[in-house]
């Protein structure tokens, strides 16, 4: 049966167009219930052992409506809930309303334990309904859901007998919808009613979102937000400005889009990361607070926030900085936040079990306090907990949220590590069974066999060795060199062939793409690929045959490239060295075996490459890292030391850079529109100018028109009596640099591809596929580029997808960096706990009520 569907749609340009689509209604959409004999089942999803609660003691399936998913997704995700039918109506509404929730829903549907089934009610002949005259789309959708629920309940009556009867239960928080459903003879509950009936899992009640029925404290009356059409119009005619809100790390009442926003009333309930509409204030009200640290917000004894805005505003001085106020929120970017319950806000006694409102202080300073309602306030004191924000009504100083789960005691190392992973949005769960199923069935016993040799060069006879930091188990690169008869050298960089195991469109690939990168913390590593691949099958360990992707150059003795060749290969590394061991080999003149000679040649070539790179204008920046000596049992840091840099570090780095550049050129020649490349934009002038002004007293300046000028001016800035000065300057310059980012080559002009720091015209990441997903994509691109018969899918040539992927990778990469930095910070704090030390330091920034110090020994700020 055919129905025509027509609706009006607004295009990007803002024109309304009419879309007419066919809409087929079918008889062959099945209920997917395990015991159903009427339907032709292909792998039924819904089990006969459905939900049972104290309130509804008969087995039943749950049908939640759209708002339940939107507001209570944490409840839905709880393992106690299973056998849920998702109506297509709901599914599509969620897709349009919120992408993050939609993705969480997709994950639930894929989780076989949860048994979520999507029922195509819109295409089912008996459940499809047409919108009535004067009926709003929402009412129509509610009715569509009810009609589908009704179909299910009659269908279930048909297929089950009295004893094993299964019911369907509609979950909705909409009172009107519920009464209508009950009038039609369906059982309908609000989420609260339902969850309170689940007596086995009382903690669920705390997880309930409390978007309604909380009265605000009316301390800071916020202005009403504009409606979305007002905002769109405002942005169109230029009275409003759109931007992503970025709150200052030092002062939570100071925020920027491109416009400065000061104070709680002007922030108007916006939270870090929200996309907001900003209105400029008249010029006379443009303000500036002197940079001050406002980190802790004081609470009065009774748990109410102090009035401190007034005193803040007295301090402001006029300036030309454009200042604005937020008048509307275009997109919320809320996520679950980690925090702890503020002691002062808990009023109940230790034994009480009544639920009360308490304030949660988020770990992220930029996030406001959050009100939650809980019965376990006393239990949760001193614990880190995860909370979600539900709403921020205009008469409440702080947003309203709900408790999600407890993470553990504050100060405990594993709890704090989990907190920092959550705060940086790092996916750190164990790999799902679906993902692990994608691994080779042989497991540890997997070996290179004859069939792997087809299409691969056999390089097992070469003297290949790997050089890595001590204790490294994911070895993704190895090197070899041999002199050629014509006096040139053949140099090979061999990279682990991860793409042999990680094929596109597999669960393994999707998981890796989502993780994006391996995250290194002080005491822990969050792998991108499962252990078996990362540390064993892909890792180029010595004296075993491993698959590799090789990049082989012919270099002259002056390190000029004669030609380059890429091939998939089989290698057998002869030695896995640490930087230190390699350095000892180079220095030890008694050693004269082939391997050692090879390393010496590589070292010579690397030095020449390095010199050439510096001549081109590459910058030597300093971002020294610290390493903790961890106590073996407690994993507590017992000492801090700087990571040492040896010649061999530079050796490996030079060849990796060379490989990356060669690969970038190759893939760009084959895929000019869809190559995944990496660029480093030149620094913006303002920050470096500030720095340049700061070192004027020493008669130095910083020029940064080209990377070369910058490198030279940094080289000049040496104070003979303070050897650390130059290093400090380099550290500070590094902090002024832009982030290097991945991008898709089709989205930019060729001249924008430049990598400023490395002074390379084109650059990508090829050499660490075990720990970076970008390299996996580059491997695929390169394989397709060198092998014209290679089967590759649309995913390698789709510009939009590639750009989206690079955005995700940039985000993950950044978060991984921040997470490992916070991990270092955490361990530094643990190290200094109860310790007093005297050390020399440098003041790097002066604020109004504080200053920032850099202590060279610990890199501590």
């Amino acid at each position, binding site marked *: 049966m*055919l129905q*025509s569907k027509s609706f009006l749609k607004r295009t990007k340009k803002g024109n309304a*167009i*009419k*879309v*007419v*689509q*066919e*809409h*087929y*209604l*079918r008889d062959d*959409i099945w209920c997917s219930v395990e015991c159903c004999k009427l339907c032709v089942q292909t792998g039924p999803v819904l089990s006969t052992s459905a939900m049972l609660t104290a309130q509804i003691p008969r087995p039943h399936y749950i049908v939640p409506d759209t708002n339940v998913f939107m507001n209570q997704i944490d409840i839905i995700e709880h393992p106690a809930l299973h056998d849920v039918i998702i109506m*297509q109506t709901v*599914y*599509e509404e969620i*897709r349009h309303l919120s992408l993050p929730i939609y993705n969480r829903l*997709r994950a639930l*549907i894929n989780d076989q334990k949860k048994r979520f089934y*999507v029922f*195509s009610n*819109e*295409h089912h002949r008996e459940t499809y309904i047409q919108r009535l005259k004067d009926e709003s789309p929402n009412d129509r959708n509610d009715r569509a859901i009810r009609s589908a629920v009704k179909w299910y309940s009659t269908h279930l009556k048909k297929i089950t007998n009295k004893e094993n009867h299964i019911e369907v239960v509609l979950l909705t928080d909409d009172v009107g919808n519920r009464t209508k459903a009950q009038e039609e003879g369906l059982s309908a509950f609000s989420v609260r009613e339902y969850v309170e009936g689940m007596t086995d899992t009382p903690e669920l009640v705390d997880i309930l979102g409390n978007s309604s029925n909380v009265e605000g404290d009316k301390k800071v009356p916020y202005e009403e937000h504009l409606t979305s059409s007002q905002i769109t119009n405002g942005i169109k005619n230029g009275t409003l400005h759109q931007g992503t809100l970025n709150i200052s790390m030092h002062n939570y009442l100071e925020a920027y889009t491109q416009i400065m926003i000061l104070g709680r009333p002007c922030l108007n309930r916006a939270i870090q990361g929200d996309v907001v509409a900003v209105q400029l204030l008249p010029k006379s009200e443009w303000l500036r607070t002197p940079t001050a640290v406002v980190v802790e917000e004081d609470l009065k004894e009774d748990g109410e926030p102090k009035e401190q805005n007034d005193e803040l505003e007295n301090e402001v001085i006029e300036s030309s900085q454009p200042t604005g106020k937020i008048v509307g929120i275009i997109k919320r970017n809320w996520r679950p936040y980690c925090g702890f319950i503020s002691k002062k806000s808990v009023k109940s006694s230790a034994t009480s079990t009544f639920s009360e409102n308490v304030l949660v202080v988020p770990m992220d300073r930029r996030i406001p306090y959050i009100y939650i309602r809980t019965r376990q306030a006393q239990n949760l004191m001193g614990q880190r907990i995860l909370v979600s924000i539900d709403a921020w009504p205009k008469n409440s100083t702080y947003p309203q949220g709900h408790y999600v789960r407890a993470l553990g005691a504050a100060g405990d190392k594993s709890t704090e590590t989990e907190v920092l992973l959550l705060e940086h949005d790092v996916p750190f769960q164990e790999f799902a069974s679906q993902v692990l199923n994608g691994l080779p069935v042989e497991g540890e016993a997997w070996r290179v066999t004859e069939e792997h040799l087809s299409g691969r060069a056999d390089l097992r006879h070469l003297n290949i060795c790997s050089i890595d930091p001590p204790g490294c188990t994911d070895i993704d690169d190895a090197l070899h060199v041999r002199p050629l008869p014509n006096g040139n050298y053949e140099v090979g960089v061999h990279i682990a062939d991860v793409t042999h195991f990680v094929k596109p*469109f597999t669960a393994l690939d999707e998981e890796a793409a989502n993780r994006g990168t391996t995250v290194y913390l002080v005491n822990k590593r969050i792998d991108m690929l499962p252990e078996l691949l990362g540390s064993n099958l892909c890792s180029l360990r010595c004296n075993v045959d491993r698959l590799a992707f090789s990049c082989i150059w012919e270099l002259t003795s002056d390190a000029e490239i004669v030609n380059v060749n890429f091939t998939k290969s089989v290698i057998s590394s002869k030695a896995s060295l640490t930087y230190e061991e390699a350095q000892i080999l180079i220095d030890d003149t008694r050693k004269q075996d082939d391997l050692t000679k090879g390393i010496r040649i590589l070292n010579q070539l690397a030095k020449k490459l390095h010199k050439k790179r510096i001549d081109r204008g590459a910058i030597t920046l300093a971002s020294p890292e610290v390493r903790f000596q961890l106590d073996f049992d407690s994993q507590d840091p017992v000492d801090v030391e700087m990571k040492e840099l040896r010649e061999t570090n530079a050796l490996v780095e030079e060849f990796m850079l060379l490989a990356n550049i060669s690969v970038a050129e190759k893939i760009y020649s084959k895929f000019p529109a869809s190559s995944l490349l990496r660029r480093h934009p030149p620094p913006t002038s303002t920050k470096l100018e500030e720095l340049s002004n700061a070192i004027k007293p020493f008669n130095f300046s910083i020029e940064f028109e080209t990377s070369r000028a910058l490198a030279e001016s940094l080289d000049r800035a040496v104070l003979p009596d303070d050897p650390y000065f130059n290093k400090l300057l380099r550290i500070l310059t590094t902090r002024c640099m832009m982030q290097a980012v991945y991008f898709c080559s089709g989205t930019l002009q060729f001249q924008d591809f430049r990598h400023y720091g490395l002074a390379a015209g084109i650059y990508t990441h090829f050499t660490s596929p075990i720990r970076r997903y970008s390299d996996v994509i580059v491997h695929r691109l390169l394989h397709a580029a060198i092998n014209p018969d290679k*089967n*590759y*899918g*649309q995913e390698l*040539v*789709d510009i*939009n997808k590639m750009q989206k992927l690079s955005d995700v990778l940039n985000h993950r990469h950044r978060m991984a960096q921040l997470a490992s930095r916070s991990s270092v910070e955490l361990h530094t704090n643990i190290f200094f706990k109860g310790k007093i030390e005297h050390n020399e330091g440098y003041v790097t920034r002066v604020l109004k009520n504080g200053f920032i110090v850099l202590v060279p020994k610990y890199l501590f700020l």
Partner: protein
Amino acid sequence: MCIITVLLILISLMDGRRANELRKIKCKPSVLSQADGSAYIEQGNTKCLAAVYGPRETRQKAQLIHNKANINVEISLAPFSMPQERKKRSKSDRRLLEIASAVKQTFEPIIMTNLFARSQIDIYLQILQFDGGTIQICINAATLALIDAGIPMQEYVCACSAGCHENHTLLDLNNAEEMADTPELTVALLPMSGKLTLLQMDSRLHVDKLEPVMNLAALGCKEIYQTLDETVREYVKDLFQKSSPY
């Protein structure tokens, strides 16, 4: 537009078809009384009217071929055929000319042109409503109109398109699906002998995917053939009844 979600529940969310199902076809021969043969055909929301004139005397001497008939194909898109853009397309629109030449090449070996030396056969195609699959509907409409005109052909020509989205093959793409960056392959087939007369694609598709996509399109062609053949038989039966003296 997202067809991916589709595969999750095995039904195209766009319109409720499964990946291997055609859109609904409606067809009617002999709709115009002035033309020698005509047909009207609907495939989903794409609607097309075909008129065939000839074999008749060549209008322009330049086009005359001394040992066979010349086939002339003209395609026009009605200004109201797309709701989005109400602009008028000229007859010399590059895209339409391309489709016209594809249609012409499809029919040249099938129509027994050597029977009508020095004459001309005109096929006029008018797209009344556009929702993807232009070439396939033009070929199908022309076949039906040629049959209605009684022009001898070796057999039916049926055309159908198929595409490929994220490793899944999809049959008979509508406009929204075409727009979703799906490689689309149009196949025209002689369904009885199984010979291929047209294979057209404008985007990239990997060789390994070509075969499944082609097979699917071929299946679609055969299904279309069934529908066309039924219509023709029904129509002939009807004619016979009307003209019989009893």
